[in-house]
């Protein structure tokens, strides 16, 4: 196991993360990317990478998760954004090149990108 030389790093991360977990569950943001066969074929992994890069560049802290097929294969890559206290918005056909605008408008400016949104779901806690 090559990586465990970095166990000390992990311990440090855990200690810091434990402190902010409570805050995060109340104010956090989740971004969920569809990663079924249909999503993967439509470029979902690249979408996920673009999201991670964008979050890093803008110093936005959000949980990014992957899920399987939800049955809307023609709309993949599907990206859901959920912020605590707001409903979860589902966006369709979000390829890597759409990510920058999506993050800018939804997370930074705080409004839904109407032309890409296809649904509103009930929010749940992280």
């Amino acid at each position, binding site marked *: *196991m*090559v*990586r*465990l030389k*970095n*166990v000390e*790093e*992990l*311990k440090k*991360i*855990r200690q*810091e*993360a*434990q402190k902010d*977990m409570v805050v*995060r569950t109340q104010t956090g943001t989740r971004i*969920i*990317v569809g*990663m*079924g*066969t*249909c999503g*993967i*074929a439509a470029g*979902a*992994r690249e979408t*996920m*990478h673009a999201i*991670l890069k964008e*979050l*890093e560049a803008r110093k936005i*802290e*959000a*949980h*990014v*998760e*992957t*899920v*399987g*097929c939800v*049955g809307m294969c023609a709309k993949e890559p599907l990206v859901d954004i959920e912020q605590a206290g707001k409903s979860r918005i589902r966006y369709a056909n979000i390829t890597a090149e759409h990510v920058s605008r999506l993050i800018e408008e939804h997370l930074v400016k705080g409004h839904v990108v109407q032309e890409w949104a296809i649904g509103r779901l009930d929010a749940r806690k992280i």
Partner: protein
Amino acid sequence: MRELSLHVLDIVENAIEAGASRVEVKIEEDLEQDRLIIDVRDNGRGMSQELIQRVMDPFCTSRTTRHVGLGLPLLAAAARRCDGDLTIESEPGRGTRVRAHFRHSHIDRAPLGDMAGAMLAVLLSERAVDLDYIHRVGDQEFRFDSAEIRKELEDIPLTHPRVREWLSGALREGEVNLQPVKTDRRLTF
């Protein structure tokens, strides 16, 4: 799919959909035997012989078997194009093993591609699953077992931004360190 790593991601997603709590992914690049082997084992709910037949038929897979889509026939076709094949061993309640092999040097073999990215997508899965990933190139090996990492992290999820950055770095570093061997050898001639 353009990269074999996307096929691997797809097979692992099937395993997660099948309720697996642990998935073992082994990629073996045996340059002397000119073989590339993808071996994915899970402890999910498994499949009956009849279901195995059905998931291998791209035209018969229906909504009732939604946890397995077109992915397996696509990987089987990719392997057969490259002097290889795909086998599935599975039993209800006992998990599934999917094994695909390719001729490493075959001109139609898609590149392995971004394995680190594919494995990161697995680790960020909404359903927590342990991933034991082994990538061997010749006599070099990179191994990454998320169970050991979870143990260190206790209640902090892998999706936590700080943890995610660490995971991404660890996977990339491991993959990069595997690469140079074969090209270096060729260059010395």
